[in-house]
């Protein structure tokens, strides 16, 4: 157990230097309805740095996988596209219902509203961990 904490602490300190300038505001994960195999995570991603950032992957504690998706509506059809999200220096990007979002799947145990989930976003070779709150809706 001690080693796990130590490892987590090391990871956290290492992550602090990664994805320079990336900040997450109001990160939240929709509480999955019973029986739902997947859910979505939303946030406002801010690039406070001086270089553009590309978010190209994600993972979350307690979930088998996380994909960065974009819901697009073409010819009245809603489609999900996996993608990379670029954020200009000094800019921001919204992960919001009906648009870009994190798709989280394969939960070991579906977290309930009020719990927090550790979400790691990657940008190239770097990655950084953030806390997302689980809630029912906005």
């Amino acid at each position, binding site marked *: 157990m001690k080693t796990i904490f130590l490892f987590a602490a090391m990871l956290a300190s290492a992550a602090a230097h990664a994805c320079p300038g990336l900040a997450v505001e109001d990160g939240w994960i*929709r509480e999955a*309805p*019973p*029986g*739902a*195999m*997947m*859910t*979505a995570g939303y946030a406002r991603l801010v690039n406070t740095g001086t270089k553009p950032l590309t978010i190209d992957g994600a993972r979350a504690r307690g979930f088998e996988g996380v994909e960065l*998706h974009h*819901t697009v*509506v073409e010819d*009245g*059809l*809603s*489609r*999900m596209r996996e993608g990379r999200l670029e954020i200009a220096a000094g800019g921001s990007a919204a992960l919001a*219902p*009906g648009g870009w*979002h994190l*798709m*989280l*799947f394969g939960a070991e145990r579906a977290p309930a509203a009020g719990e927090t989930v550790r979400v790691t976003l990657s940008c190239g070779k770097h990655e950084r961990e953030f806390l997302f709150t689980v809630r*029912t*809706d906005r």
Partner: protein
Amino acid sequence: MRAPADSSQTCVNPKARAALIAASVLVALGLGVFTASQVYAPRTRPQPESGVVLNQPRPLADFALVDHEGQPYTNAQLQGHWTLLFAGFTHCPDVCPTTLSLMKQLDARLRQRQAPLDYLFLSVDPERDTPQQLKKYVTYFSPAIRGVTGTREQLDALCANLGIAYLKVPGASDGEYTVDHSTALVLLDPRGRVAGYFQPPHKLDTLASDLAGIVTSGT
């Protein structure tokens, strides 16, 4: 033998005759225009801000689905009340939960305004969405929402009839798939006919007052 009466004797005078002809032509023209306006452009309904209301509601062919209690759900269940329908599936992390949350909020608003609607979540993924699965899923959002699904054949026919579409799309790994689907909310009138469509992004306030207007005016 009398010569046939000439026009000057039977009609009042050529001037009056010309006037009469002109008048008849005008009346005929007017009638024609009126008829055409009735045939080609039935009275246009006031259009809501957030969607489109059909001038002529479109009847649905007979369909047979099953609801989340395992009970039959057919055209008969659409009679006597307005219904708002959304087609999706439970393995849908973004648009479907967002829309079902919206339905829950709409239900609260419209009850306050004495304009109740029925809410239907039509699953176009019957392989994974069993009635039991649908029940857990929709009632989590609101007891006012009813989940329905059916065989592929039934769903294909009904969706075509509703004017909505869906497409099963293979995923990255074997057996995995997702479903592209229409995002429109379909409004059905108390005779079970398609009455209108509402497209996202939905604004709760506008949608609620549009629907309340339609439902209470009975059009």
